[in-house]
């Protein structure tokens, strides 16, 4: 599904990723952990194609195709989705109109007709239910005045609507209370299946109690320094990252 090969990148002339290698197969859930400033969010942004990040070396392959040169929207069309750590507020555009535009533009890129209004409405209702979202939420301006929890829930709602092949969840658990965390995690689990993959970027083990990863990677100073199973996350929760620094 996704293969990252010796990826180096810079932002504003500063090197952030210094040779990341990562391989995620179809149907797998991977967690990425690491201390602040280690390059986790950068990795999410680079996978999504954020234009401020300059890839200086290495490649990203998605479905065996190099996507380094694809634009942000083109990567989305290929099936890459990122749940933002800080979703942007867009006044004047309702959640419904936004998601309709996103879905129909993606369909257009695949040579498909617009989804019919009734089908769209049905899908919106179904996915909103999945995330326990109030229907008036859908006619509100995108993220405007949303609480932290509502914003994250809205991200996963969009993921559920877009049905991506690869979802990159960038600190989706930050700012969530335990009830909201359960709803969000449950939404992710329900959407994940044998044909799609998930990358969960997090600081905390607690999210991984609900979204159980097949593999856990630790990034430090722009490199993957350790890969293990879910027990690695548990160990980090207890002892932190210092022991990895020494072994590095």
């Amino acid at each position, binding site marked *: 599904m996704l293969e990252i090969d010796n990826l180096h990148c810079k932002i504003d002339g500063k090197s952030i990723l210094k040779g990341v290698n990562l391989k995620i197969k179809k149907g797998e859930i991977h967690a990425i952990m690491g201390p602040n400033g280690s390059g986790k969010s950068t990795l999410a942004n680079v996978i999504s194609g954020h234009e401020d990040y300059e890839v200086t070396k290495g490649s990203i392959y998605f479905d065996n195709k190099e996507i380094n040169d694809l634009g942000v929207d083109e990567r989305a069309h290929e099936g890459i989705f990122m749940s933002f750590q800080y979703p942007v507020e867009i*006044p004047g555009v309702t959640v419904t109109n936004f998601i309709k535009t996103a*879905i129909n533009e993606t369909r257009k890129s695949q040579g498909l007709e617009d989804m019919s209004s009734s089908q769209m409405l049905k899908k919106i209702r179904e996915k909103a239910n999945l995330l326990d979202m109030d229907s008036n939420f859908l006619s509100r301006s995108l993220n405007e005045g949303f609480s932290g929890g509502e914003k994250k829930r809205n991200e996963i709602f969009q993921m559920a609507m877009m049905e991506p092949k690869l979802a990159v969840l960038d600190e989706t658990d930050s700012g969530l209370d335990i009830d909201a965390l359960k709803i969000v995690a449950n939404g992710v689990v329900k959407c994940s299946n044998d044909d799609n993959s998930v990358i969960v970027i997090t600081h905390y083990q607690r999210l991984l109690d609900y979204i159980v990863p097949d593999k856990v990677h630790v990034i430090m100073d722009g490199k993957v320094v350790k890969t293990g199973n879910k027990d690695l996350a548990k160990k980090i929760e207890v002892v932190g990252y210092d022991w990895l620094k020494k072994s590095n």
Partner: protein
Amino acid sequence: MSFQDKLLDSFIAFEQVIDLDNPVHTVRKNALKRFESDGFPTKKDELWKYTSLKSIIQKDYSLSVKSNPNVGLKDIEKYSINDIDSYKIVFVDGVFNPFLSNTTHDGMDICVLSAALSKTKYKKTITKYFNKIVPDDQSLASLNTSYTKEGAYIHIPKSVLPEDPVQILHFSSGKNKPLWLQPRNIIIVEENARVEIIERHQSLRSHDGATNSLTEIYAEKNSFIDYYKIQNDIETSNLIDNTFIDQQRDSNVRVHTFSFGGKLTRNNLNFYHKGENIQSTLKGLTMLEGDQHVDHNTLVNHAQPNCESHQDYKGIFSERSVGVFNGKILVDQIAQKTNAFQQNNNILIDNKAKVNSKPQLEIFADDVKCSHGCTIGQLDKEALFYLKSRGIPDKEAVALLTYGFANSILKSVNIPSLKKRINSLISKKLGVDLGFDL
């Protein structure tokens, strides 16, 4: 001969075609004298600092048409809203066209000023209202007054609530020499009455004419007026719009100005409060490209206690277009408990686009709530990334953000088919059909 001299000289010829015994004529003559001494405004005038009329008044214009331009329904149809019933007052090259219009005298007057000036039954009303709210110190208003002859005349009597809106449509055929048009509209809405008005100035073919329009609006006690100005003229036409609104107690007047076209557009929009508990709303959406220039000059004079005014102007400027916002809120000493709010937000799409925004608050009362805010910026790059990461291509993402930005102006448009029309004008401007209306 300068165009100003031509205007002064041509007055004798103008006097040949009007009734000199009408008391209005004294008002005309006095206005001409004022225009003669004041002249056209220049950039030295504080209120004209960012907009120059020089290129416009250097040209020569005809003041009236010599031949019938022969304009039919098919020529003008697309510029009016036809999917709802409405009254229409249509002028072509400054001349009323009864065939294209739908006027009424049934329980209210929706007709033309020339009729109101010539018939004795209107004399009392004309004497009571004509030019009563127009200040003496605005030379373009004086110029319009001096040539008062034709325009819309709308008089809604006490407690009458017309179901249908009124469309005031001014067309230039472009078939004659460039014209200098000066329509004069008078709108009187009596106690407990209401009216919705859509006004549009449109050239039917490329032609560098100019319009110096003046509209007097009288909102009597507890009346409601909803006024929409659609400015989407071709890129060679110029418009100076002078609007003066007299509001009596408990009245509510809203003016929305959509400025999408034209070469140079200047809006002088003035509200004068004459009683308590008045509401005034001024909203504007400006979307320009090329070398277009739009100047919004607003005044709200809070002259009585307990009144409210809300101003919200938004602008999106591409290429080399220029926007000006000069919004003045004047709160007299007596006008305690005033709530006056003003907001002007602008987005510059291209490097060469320019905006001059100047809020002006003059407050002489001590127990008021007044605020103003002004921003000039670009589309939020992170917002664009967010939209694109959901598969929305660049052009559509820009359009969606622009729609979102414009939404606070659009959402208060109360005539659905007008809202739809404006939506489609915006889509066309953005080159994107998003498949939904806001």
